[in-house]
């Protein structure tokens, strides 16, 4: 950018109270913004001056004066339609082009899962680590965010990056950005979500590339056991290894983790953490201990003993799970103890990124 251009950009940005431009998208959006703003101002002032000049020139000199009958020619009307239309369509076209750019992530993005929840943001790097409220990303590297929500609709907004996207329960949405300046930037929730909507804030921490690599390597120290919940189905049948690992894999394949969390938080179903041998109150009011028998029964006949506070939404897995598979799941559940939960990596729902051309 030439010096003059930088000056123009800074002038406009400060005049319009726009925040710093800290992503590649920010420049695109701001330049279209300036274009629209300048055309609007010039044309409105022109129309305004015209009206004012009419006002002074044609002030009423007598009450109930006669006036000429003035009509518009077709040529005039056509101009009046065509000129705004051309500008509007140019803006729409540029806007659409930028929007396509913004909604089509490049290859080799760094993927980060974002889960919104009243009233916090949860970020997970697929290979760890996780964090609440703070999202750490590298500068000058494209980052893709895969957003979903656990309860109501939220919206992820970073003014300095000019990015925003709704996080919708029950589906994933994606956006990408490339931060250009290391620093710390505010995250806001922009979709009204209840009492503390305005407190649902966080920070993006942009680190220079090398620093980020060091940071993430340090974070991953101690994460010995990687959980790959997005396990593919291809080798599920002839799995070799211990039952618990098999169960872990099955839980991803069979979709258990869509409803049962591995982080101790109740989701659509009860969490699996500490579930084994837990004293559980049922809808019917009776209390049972969740032993192997109960766990297996709940997979096959989910509605006979529903845990209090949950809906009857779980499908039956009768016929879908072979006996050894059910056993593997039970074994997996048995390994999930909260005292061993420290430093576990991503526990997000299964999400297979769509193949991009």
């Amino acid at each position, binding site marked *: 950018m030439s010096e003059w251009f930088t000056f123009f950009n800074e002038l406009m940005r400060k005049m*319009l*109270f*726009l925040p710093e431009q800290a992503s590649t998208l920010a420049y*695109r*959006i701001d330049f*279209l*913004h300036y274009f629209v*703003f300048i055309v*609007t101002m010039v044309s*409105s002032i022109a*129309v*305004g001056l015209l*009206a004012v000049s*009419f006002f002074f020139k*044609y*002030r*009423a000199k007598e009450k109930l*004066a006669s*006036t*000429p*009958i*003035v*009509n*518009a*020619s077709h040529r*005039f009307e056509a101009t*009046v*339609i065509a000129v*705004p239309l051309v500008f*509007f369509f140019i803006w*729409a076209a540029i*806007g*659409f*082009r930028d*929007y396509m750019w*913004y909604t089509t992530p490049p290859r080799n993005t760094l993927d980060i899962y974002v889960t919104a929840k009243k009233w916090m943001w949860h970020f997970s790097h697929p290979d760890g680590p996780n964090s609440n409220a703070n999202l750490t990303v590298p500068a000058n590297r494209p980052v893709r965010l895969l957003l979903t929500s656990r*309860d*109501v*609709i939220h*919206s992820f*907004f970073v*003014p300095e990056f000019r*990015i*925003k*996207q*709704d996080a*919708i*329960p*029950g589906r994933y*949405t994606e956006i990408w950005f490339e931060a250009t300046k290391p620093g710390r930037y*505010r995250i*806001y929730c*922009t*979709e*009204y979500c209840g*009492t503390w*909507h*305005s407190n649902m804030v966080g920070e993006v921490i942009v680190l220079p590339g090398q620093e980020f690599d060091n940071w993430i390597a340090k974070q991953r120290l101690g994460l010995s056991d990687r959980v790959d919940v997005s396990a593919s189905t291809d080798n599920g049948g002839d799995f070799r290894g211990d039952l618990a690992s098999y169960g872990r894999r099955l839980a991803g394949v069979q979709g258990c983790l869509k409803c049962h969390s591995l982080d101790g938080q109740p989701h659509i179903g009860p969490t699996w953490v500490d579930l084994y041998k837990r004293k559980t109150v049922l809808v019917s009011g009776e209390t049972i201990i969740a032993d192997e028998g109960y766990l297996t029964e709940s997979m096959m006949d989910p509605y006979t003993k529903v845990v209090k506070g949950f*809906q009857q*939404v779980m499908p039956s897995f009768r016929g879908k799970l072979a006996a050894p598979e059910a056993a593997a799941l039970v074994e997996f559940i048995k390994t999930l103890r909260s005292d061993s939960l420290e430093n576990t990596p991503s526990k997000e729902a299964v999400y297979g990124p769509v193949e991009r051309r």
Partner: protein
Amino acid sequence: MAQLSVVNESEGYLKVNYMNADRGIMSWVLTLDHKRIALMYFVLTMVSFFIGGMLAEAIRIEHLTPGETIMGANTYNRMFTLHGVVMIFMFMIPAVPGIFGNFCLPLMLGAKDVAFPRLNLLSVYVYAVGAGLLVYAMASGGVDAGWTFYAPYSLSTPATIFPALLGVFIIGFSSILTGLNFIVTVHTLRAPGMTWMRMPLFVWATYATSIIQVLATPVIGITAMLVGIEHVFGFGFFDPTRGGDPVLFQHMFWFYSHPAVYIMVLPSMGVISEAVAAVSRKNIFGYKMIAYSSLGITFVGFFAWGHHMFLSGQSALDSGAFAIISMLVGVFTAIKVFNWVGTMYRGSIAVNALLFYVCGFLFFVVFGGMTGIAVATVSLDVHWHDTYFVVAHFHFIMVGAVLMGVLAAIHMWFPKMFGRMYHEGWAMVAAALIVLGFNATFIPQFLLGNAGMPRRYFLYDEKYWMLNVASTAGSTLLFIGFVIVAIYLIYALKHGPIAGSNPWGLTGLEWQTTSPPPKHNFIGQPTVEEDPYTYQKKGEKVEHVVI
């Protein structure tokens, strides 16, 4: 002919008029007279406006400091929800059609009444019941879902939203009845000689509005009921945990609520068309273009709803299509603006409060409209969506423009409705205060949105403090302006000078009858022999100009 004799010619005030022709409470409660119904709407919507305005003031005062100022987070959330619900459903949608549509439409067409007077009366009571339910919802703890009632938040909130949704549903019926009535009235009750192309532009605008009311309102009705039923019985229609789709709610909601913006603004555009001709004593420049552009907005407005959902996960292609369609609304509005300004050319422009409101309207509609084009530009919306920029944008249109229309209508037709004149000096002072105060309130909000302050925020970062204080200060000016208007109008009701049947020297049929009009509007059947807005003296040589 009997009634003619009671016109006191020297005073120009019809002593036995529609307001006192029948006496007693029942003659008002069961009235079928469109003019009395208009007055009932006047009172009800003004009470609603007062409630909504007070809520707005409370919100602005809360924002004087970044933290908690006068209320807690939950109270704040209820305040902005109710501000939206009251202003939109109880004030803006019924105001201009209910008051001025009812009062002026039959008069302008030269009809004795609207086509279905009993439905008209019913619409007032339906409105009152719906509004009552909304007030009950407020009193019984309030609603905190935002006026948009987005699922699934609205399904999970513990607040008592069912009465509020039922209220919205019922008010919707009132709106349908009004719209249906006006469409049929325009089709069947035009005076002899009142061809379509001779109809005043306010009638055209009301007609276009009525089409939207009839076609869009049932959809919000069923949507509101679905949310209500789901909140109470758990039907799961929009609830993702039961297999429902929350985005479907947004589609159904905006299918109504986007055209609803035009229900609010089109009648005001009609009023301004009348007012701009009145203050400049000119024929409307491009009459047909203005008339057709109202219908154009109606048609296109039905297909633009998706621009509220650019970031809700709808496909990028959809977003692009909705953006293009939204641009067309901008073009129709631009046509109107150019033609209004053109109408002033070679006119004889009077300086009065009406002119202030016309200019205010033009200003608000240009900037509200252009910022609308800007937020409909897909990529720009990414930054502005759900920030204060959007808040400022729709307040420019829905408050700035609509309110200028309402105020212009009040000031233009007040002498017709009540037969008396208000104080012109005070009216100009108030108009100036309102236009200034409005700008001072909402221009800072555009900048807040640029700076990235999200809407519906109870707490905000300190970097947004200064602009929020500016906005609150502006709202105080606005408030003072409204108080002045209320005072001089109420004073004028009893003590204003007699206006005479045609104080502005206008040509519409409503000015050909007495002020206030008699019970059956006209004495004899009026006929129309010339185009509207023909301000030339009879027999005078008329200069024709084509640009």
